[in-house]
């Protein structure tokens, strides 16, 4: 028979006995404070053998209590009770602790607690007080004996009937009786927490917050704490409730579930689901679903099973036969495939599955007239586009292999199955407008307008379509309809004014100033905002100016003066004149306008606000106006604006392509806010609007520093813009190959820019030979530079100089200069020059000094071409790339 293992030796080694009493006391107290209750008990017991000191007895009592709690927490109730008993035996000073009493009552030792309340007991009254709620709780719990054994005047006995009545009334739902029973329990009663609890439970259903606050008044040491905890669990939100019930005892669970309206069946199912193995949960859930399919319903279970199959599709399908489920039908297979494919980034996969699902549904038609069936087909046809808003993302295309074209075709087809989906019309109309397919826009608008003649989004689309095709009169008509429906819609009013003014411009261009004046007068009737009225008055003045310079000039002077007489009024006039194709020089001359001057920061801010409004309304600026504005604004007192105004100003100037003014403003800002990333960006972009053509690294270093600072400051948007600017300026990804070399003698920087690269053919041939991908393939100091240079020469010969320049990321200006030189000295000579540059770059470039290579910037919205199939020519991409 195996022997019971000996108890672990305590922390008190034989050496401890040799210690002085002070040292032993110090050690025992340290054990007590550290929660080493067993060692503390041993230590203080030994000390008490030396001397019966009161403080040591008290410390031993604390150690027993600590150990008892430890054991109780582990569920070792009997052992805990022994510890409490040991504590109680230490004497009157360690009188029955309420926790000891609670444990006694739980384990049937009620009599021992009751004995403390007999007249013979020397237990002082204040020591009895904390024990009374324990007895009170047991009285309510149905222990009839307790009240009878207590003295007549004991409050536990005196209030017992009211407390029990309260319980009965609560359980019976008799709130009136409950109220009167609770009223019979005084505040200082041992049943006080019971009163709080019942009041909270009454509120639980309708006012859970108040109930929670009421429950919070019951302390953790209270005899009613277990009931309070159960009630608190019942008040938790769903997720927390489910979590809390996982570790709760049976009575707690029953109590909480009753308060929440949970049935025993629900609790049982919840426990079953909670015990599912986390790793195998999908499969376990499948089993549970089939096991409970009678309660859940066959159809519902099938739908959920399909959803469980969507992850790891189609691998999970093999679970079905083993779980007794039927395999997927064709439509189910495509549906699950589509759900699964939607988890992927590639839009072609879901397109494929949704298309197959739609075709399958079409083929399995119960009846062509069934509206639900038709709707399902249409919904499947729309699914791929709708899930990702692909038509908004993709560029319109005429390529039959292009996804946008196929999606648009599917949406068109969906309208044959379900012509009542307004959203589909709007998506298609937007897409066709983007692709300038005005005929299709008009066709769809005609159908949509028939179905929803007074729908604002359809009317808005009609309005924009009319403007797109220059049908300003029609646009005005649509805007009138919109205002009939929504007379206080200021946006529509503005649009109507714009449409009428656009129509006036058209009439003026046709040589009909009379009709133009009528349109402007109509526009003035609709204009409500200050800017709209100013635009109409200025346009009238300009029409007058064409017919009678003096009268027109007077009118215009008056209008400009009414706008403030400063730069804002002058810019308003310039914008109105630009709309009528009147050059600024001609306007200046005919209207005899003074030199524009700003009246202060407010005037300047008003100008910027006006320009923003003009651009927001879709207005454009002619080259003539841009030049005039740039020349005018460059001298403005930019330093008078605060930081936010300056940021906004730079952004407006960027939108207007006013590079000189933007540069001046950004530099003024940098003087005040040194190195501020956003102004560094504006300064750089304004200085090099056509791409960086400098030879110095300094601007790029400034840009990099600004990017680092923006990142450090958490300004991710500016950091990203700076990164894009750097990438565009430094396509080699490291130090510029020209950075360490003197500029070539033939480059004097006097050529104009014209970006004339149209190498789509090569784009198709070399999709990954973009500037960002080049550095990895360029010769390096450690690589076989000669061989790679030879490959580059071959590449240049294959693709031609134009494409090679583009791949190298040469700015258009340099490219043009190279081409000019090529015409003079021949292609071979230029190729040699190019190779010299590359050789120098290979020898002098240091990848570690610059930012790491990055992906090339995107040229525009993503277009999704059909994936290459196995039958495609394998030479198309990779083999060509290997030339590098």
């Amino acid at each position, binding site marked *: 028979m195996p022997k019971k293992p000996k108890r672990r030796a305590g922390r008190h080694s034989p050496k401890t006995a040799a210690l002085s009493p002070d040292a032993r006391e110090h050690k025992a107290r340290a054990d007590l404070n550290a929660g080493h209750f067993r060692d503390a008990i041993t230590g203080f017991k030994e000390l008490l053998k030396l001397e019966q000191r009161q403080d040591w007895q008290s410390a031993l009592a604390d150690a027993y209590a600590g150990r008892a709690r430890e054991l109780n927490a582990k569920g070792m109730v009997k052992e805990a009770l022994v510890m409490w008993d040991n504590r109680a035996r230490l004497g009157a000073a360690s009188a029955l602790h309420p926790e000891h009493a609670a444990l006694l*009552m*739980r384990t049937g030792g009620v009599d021992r607690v009751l004995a403390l309340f007999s007249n013979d007991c020397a237990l002082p009254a204040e020591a009895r007080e904390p024990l009374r709620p324990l007895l009170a*709780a*047991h009285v*309510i*719990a*149905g222990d009839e004996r307790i009240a009878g054994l207590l003295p007549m005047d004991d409050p536990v006995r005196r209030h017992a009937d009211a407390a029990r009545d309260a*319980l*009965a009334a609560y*359980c019976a739902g008799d709130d009136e009786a409950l109220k009167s029973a609770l009223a019979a329990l005084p505040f200082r009663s041992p049943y006080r927490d019971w009163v709080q609890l019942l009041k909270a*439970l009454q509120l*639980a*259903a309708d*006012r*859970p*917050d108040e109930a929670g606050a009421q429950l919070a008044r019951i302390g953790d040491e209270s005899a*009613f704490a*277990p*009931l309070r905890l*159960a009630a608190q669990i019942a008040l938790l939100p769903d997720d927390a409730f*489910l979590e809390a019930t996982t570790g*709760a*005892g*049976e*009575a*707690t669970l*029953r*109590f909480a579930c*009753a*308060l*929440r*309206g*949970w*049935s025993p069946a*629900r609790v049982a*199912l*919840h426990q079953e*689901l909670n015990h599912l193995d986390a790793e195998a949960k*999908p499969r376990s859930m499948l089993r549970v*679903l089939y096991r*409970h399919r009678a*309660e*859940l*319903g066959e159809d*519902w279970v099938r*739908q*959920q099973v399909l*959803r*469980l199959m969507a*992850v790891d599709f189609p691998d999970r399908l093999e679970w079905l036969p083993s779980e007794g489920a039927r395999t997927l039908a064709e439509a189910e297979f495509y*549906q*699950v495939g589509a759900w*699964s494919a939607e988890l992927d980034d590639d839009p072609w996969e879901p397109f494929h599955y949704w298309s197959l699902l739609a075709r399958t549904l079409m083929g399995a038609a119960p009846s062509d007239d069934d509206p*639900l069936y038709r*709707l*399902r087909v249409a*919904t*499947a046809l729309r699914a791929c586009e*709708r*899930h990702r808003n692909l038509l908004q993302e993709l560029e319109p295309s005429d390529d039959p292999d292009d996804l946008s074209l196929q999606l648009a075709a599917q949406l068109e087809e969906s309208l044959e199955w379900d012509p009542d989906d307004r959203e589909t019309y709007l998506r298609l109309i937007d897409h066709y407008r983007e692709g300038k397919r005005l005929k299709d826009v008009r066709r769809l608008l005609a159908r949509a307008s028939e179905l929803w003649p007074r729908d604002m989004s359809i009317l808005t689309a009609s309005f924009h379509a009319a403007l797109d095709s220059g049908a300003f009169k029609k646009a005005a008509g649509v805007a009138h309809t919109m205002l009939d429906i929504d007379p206080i819609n200021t946006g529509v009013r503005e649009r109507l004014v714009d449409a009428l003014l656009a129509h006036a411009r058209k009439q003026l261009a046709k040589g009909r100033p009379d009709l133009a004046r009528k349109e402007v007068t109509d526009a003035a009737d609709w204009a409500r905002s200050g800017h709209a009225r100013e635009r109409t008055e200025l346009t009238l003045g300009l029409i007058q100016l064409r017919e009678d310079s003096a009268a027109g000039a007077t009118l215009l002077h008056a209008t400009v003066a009414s706008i403030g007489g400063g730069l804002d009024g002058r810019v308003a006039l310039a914008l109105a004149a630009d709309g009528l194709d009147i050059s600024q020089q001609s306007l200046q001359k005919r209207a005899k306008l003074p030199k524009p001057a700003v009246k202060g920061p407010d005037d300047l801010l008003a100008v910027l606000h006006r320009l923003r409004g003009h651009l927001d309304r879709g207005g454009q600026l002619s080259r003539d106006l841009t030049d005039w504005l740039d020349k005018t604004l460059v001298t403005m007192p930019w330093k008078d604006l605060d930081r936010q105004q300056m940021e906004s100003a730079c952004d407006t100037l960027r939108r207007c392509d006013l590079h000189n003014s933007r540069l001046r403003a950004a530099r003024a800002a940098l003087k005040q806010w040194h190195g501020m990333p956003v102004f560094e960006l504006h300064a750089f972009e304004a200085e090099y609007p056509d791409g960086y053509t400098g030879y110095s690294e300094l601007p790029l270093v400034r840009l990099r520093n600004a990017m680092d600072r923006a990142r450090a400051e958490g300004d991710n948007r500016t950091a990203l813009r700076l990164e894009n600017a750097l990438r565009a300026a430094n396509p080699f990804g490291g130090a510029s190959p020209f950075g360490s070399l003197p500029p070539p003698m033939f480059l004097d920087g006097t050529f104009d820019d014209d970006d004339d690269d149209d190498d789509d053919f090569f784009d198709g041939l070399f999709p990954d030979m973009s500037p960002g991908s080049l550095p990895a393939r360029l010769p390096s100091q450690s690589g076989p530079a000669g061989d790679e240079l030879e490959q580059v020469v071959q590449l240049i010969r294959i693709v031609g100089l134009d494409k090679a320049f583009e791949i190298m990321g040469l700015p258009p200006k340099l490219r043009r200069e190279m081409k000019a030189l090529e015409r003079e000295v021949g292609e071979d000579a230029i190729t040699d020059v190019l190779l010299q540059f590359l050789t120098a770059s290979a020898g002098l470039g240091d990848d570690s000094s610059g930012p790491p290579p990055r992906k090339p910037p995107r040229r525009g919205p993503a277009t999704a071409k059909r994936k290459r199939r196995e039958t495609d020519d394998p030479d198309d991409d990779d083999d060509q790339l290997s030339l590098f």
Partner: protein
Amino acid sequence: MRNPYLILGIDDDADDAVVETAYLDGIKRCPPERDAERFAALRQAYELLRTQRRRVTYAMYHGEPPETADILDKAAPIGAPRRPDAATIGALLRGEE
């Protein structure tokens, strides 16, 4: 994502009127000031199901696997809150958790 039919407490073949009634009943029981989370869930469920077009779209586009709470709600829906019985309360007061 929770199953909107179960949030509203309606069958899968519910029509527009049933959906609306369930939604109105739900928000009457759980106005936003009382249970904002529940109210938001009811609102979202209603938006997903309020027309036949939306219900078909939900059925076809939402392929999320069921949540535990969905299965519970379907098999044993939550009933009206009840007051616990005296025996349960007594057990808790005696320390029988």
